[in-house]
């Protein structure tokens, strides 16, 4: 619900801290709510904490779904 954005983990700092980046803007955030995060992962950041990872395959599939809708002819009622 609340404002959260996906950002790329670029550096792990220890003590559950990491630096994330989005288009040149870098921020230090907490990874205390996640396990097994590595540099290169994308995470969703909310109030300075990473809430979940972004699954790249699922993201691809969702976008592909949107694109496919352009190829499907109108449903027959």
């Amino acid at each position, binding site marked *: *619900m*609340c*404002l959260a*954005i996906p950002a790329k983990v670029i550096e792990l700092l220890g003590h559950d801290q990491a630096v994330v980046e*989005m*288009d*040149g*803007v*870098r*921020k*230090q955030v907490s990874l205390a709510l996640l396990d097994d995060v590595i540099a290169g992962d994308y995470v969703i*950041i*909310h*109030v*300075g904490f990473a809430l979940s990872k972004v699954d790249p395959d699922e993201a691809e599939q969702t976008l592909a779904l949107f694109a496919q809708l352009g190829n499907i002819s109108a449903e027959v009622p």
Partner: protein
Amino acid sequence: MNVKRKARPYVRPLDIANGQVDMSHGSGGRAMAQLIGEMFLPEFDNSYLREGNDSARLPAEPGRLVMASDAHVVSPLFFPGGDIGCLAVHGTVNDLAMMGAQPRWLSASFILEEGLPLAQLQQIARSMGRAAREAGVTIVTGDTKVVERGKGDGVFIATTGIGFLPEDVEIAGDRARPGDRILVSGTLGDHGMAIMAQRESLGFASAIQSDTAPLHELVAVLLQSGADVRVLRDPTRGGLATTLNEIAGQSGVGMMLQESAIPVRPAVASACEFLGLDPLYVANEGKLVAIVAAEDVDVALAALRAHPLGREAAIIGMVQEDPHQFVQMTTRLGGRRIVDWLSGEQLPRIC
């Protein structure tokens, strides 16, 4: 032959490296004279200031006299891309330029907080002097006061500028008409986000630089192009949205913008996303909005883009009839929304 000069008492120079502003610097006495003499005069040096009077006698020029006034309270004093000093010069130059006037002279009044390091004050004065020289304006008079520690944010600067407007130039906020096109001279939100990045409580790092710049030469090339320029304004506090709503109100018109045409740097967009801010409401200090007659829009755009400060100029919308005077926008998705007045101060949000 040697001529023996009258011995002058030794005056210890200001300790700029380690010294601080104290109450005596505002008292009107020797300490203040020394501050002005060793701090401001070397940086602003010109014949008017060297006269040492409280006012400057200025020559008249052809055209109408234009005057503008500004106060600068930015914090922090130093930020990526500039500082309060050059910001003060650019801000007043731009107020004059937005009327189509040639800026000439500035006054600068400093309200210094007790404890301000002299090194910082020198840096600010140096930056102001440089900005003034580069803009071709002269700081001809000013004032200095000191307030007690805690009663000022380091330094406040109040400026007044004077310029001259040729008789045949008519540019004002109430001259927008349905059908006119709206242009911006470049990317939006740079200054405001450069300042935001410095606020510790937000803790983000980026390479965003303030865009603070004097715009009078950009305005000159735009006017020289022969385009019928109806309105000029620089979208400072409150951003593009506030400026357009002001103009819509003054001119009694509505506007329709294209979101996908509005230029915003990726880093600025990203910083805004982090904080839940809308770039349309973020301050700019080196950009202008121009409303021009439809038939001249391509000429106007080309003129802006030919100048270094207008390389990323873009046509972002048009003026339309609207009794409600809404500034509307076609969103990047193809939907519609209004771009309303800013409600209070734009604050970062969690939701």
